């Protein structure tokens, strides 16, 4: 039974139809969580005694950075599943995850830079985390570029899956190396507030926001994947039926 379920997961149609009812739930939940966390974090959480109100950008920066990294793993694992079990759906998920991840990385870079201005007095600081984020952004760009370079979709899928896996193996090494490099060059710079020292009154809205971002990520990934499914299956009967029923309703 378990295997049957697993192989059905490889069917884009099954996935498409199964996930349709999830969408409103995910949308509601993510909006509720993000709005709650935003109001809580921006209006009710206390100001930081050193950074004042400027620290509040972590409510976007930290969740975006979390998801950017998690997104790479989601992408790489989807690619691996596609390669190993020769399924089409995981490749579609992988392809859909790349631009979302790149965007989240970009958001975390921009918010990090904005945060850096009042904190360090510069728009750009070669801080370990920011630098790692920048490299992660390059990895995403490479993925997207490779995906678009191939004419043959199958080759594009498999080749970018290999690249994602190579990237996945490398990410911990890159992060550790950059960390080490950072301590070597600037041992005395101000670090981001480490998580253990953050006050609970600031932490809870942050955690809520992180969960909200995760749900939102799931929603966007799902929507993107569904579009990819329709695009790739546009010559099949079920997609044609879907289009005609939607047209009738409209």
């Amino acid at each position, binding site marked *: 039974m378990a295997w049957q379920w697993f192989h059905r997961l490889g069917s884009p149609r099954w996935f498409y139809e199964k996930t349709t009812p999830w969408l409103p739930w995910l949308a509601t939940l993510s909006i509720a969580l993000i709005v709650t966390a935003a109001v809580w974090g921006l209006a009710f959480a206390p100001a930081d005694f050193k950074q004042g109100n400027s620290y509040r950008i972590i409510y976007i920066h930290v969740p975006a950075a979390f998801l950017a990294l998690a997104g790479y793993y989601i992408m790489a694992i989807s690619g691996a599943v596609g*390669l190993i079990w020769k399924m089409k759906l995981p490749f579609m998920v992988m392809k859909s995850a790349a631009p979302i991840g790149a965007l989240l990385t970009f958001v975390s870079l921009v918010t990090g830079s904005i945060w850096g201005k009042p904190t360090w007095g510069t728009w750009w600081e070669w801080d370990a985390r920011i630098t790692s984020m920048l*490299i992660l952004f*390059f*990895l995403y*760009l*490479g*993925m997207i*570029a*490779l995906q678009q*370079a*191939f*004419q*043959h979709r*199958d*080759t594009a899928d*498999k*080749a970018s899956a*290999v*690249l994602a*896996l*190579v*990237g996945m*193996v*490398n990410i911990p*090494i*890159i992060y*550790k*190396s*950059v960390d*080490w*490099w950072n301590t*070597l060059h600037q041992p005395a710079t101000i670090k981001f507030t480490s998580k253990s020292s953050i006050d609970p009154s600031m932490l809870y809205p942050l955690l809520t926001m992180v969960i909200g971002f995760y749900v939102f990520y799931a929603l966007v990934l799902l929507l993107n994947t569904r579009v990819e499914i329709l695009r790739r299956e546009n010559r099949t009967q079920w997609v044609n039926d879907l289009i005609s029923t939607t047209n009738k309703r409209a």
Partner: protein
Amino acid sequence: MRDNSPAASLLGGFIASFRRDLLIAARHKAELTNPLVFFLIAVTLIPLGVSPEKTVLALLAPGIVWVMALLATLLSLDGLFRSDYDDGSLEQMLISPQSLYFTVMAKVLVHWLVSGLPVTLLAPVLGLMLSLPIEGYLPLLASLALGTASMSLIGAVGAALTVSLRKGGLLLSLIVMPLYIPVLIFGASAVQTAVQGGAIGMQLAVLGAFLALAIVLAPIAALGALRISTNG
């Protein structure tokens, strides 16, 4: 009929591929010197663009030599599987009864011998031009020897992924460069630390670990990528 003993044939296939690639490289001598000339010109640009001041150059030298060596290796990567793809040898490698892992290893080894190793050997000369302090030369040689080997291996994955693309060169650099960052960090730091009088055992050990990891994993990823590239 055939000598089917696996050990003999494994080694035989490796040696044959190694010899063949070395022969081809020897017949294309002009192409061999290109990365070296690039390395030389690129390093020459730095004093012209930044400052010929000896103290400034000495400060920058370890990083500059390392970055330029990285770029020189990168430039030579595009040809790694390209000609094999174009003339059909690659297909024949994929379906040969020899282990593709060793064929890829042989090709990468030759690539390193004709690009990474010469770059490493030329590096002290460039260090001299950039007034690298005397303590830096041996660490420069050691770190580049280890680092360029890792870079040839990691780069092979990128070359295999882009071999079927007509204009894969720039894309290859794009996908491989971020993966080179750890090697660059520890390589350049080894030279820098040595110049400042520190011990560099740790950096060289890490570079060695990177190389060991690359030897095990990179050919596997590269051969998978080669199969994918020839499939389409």
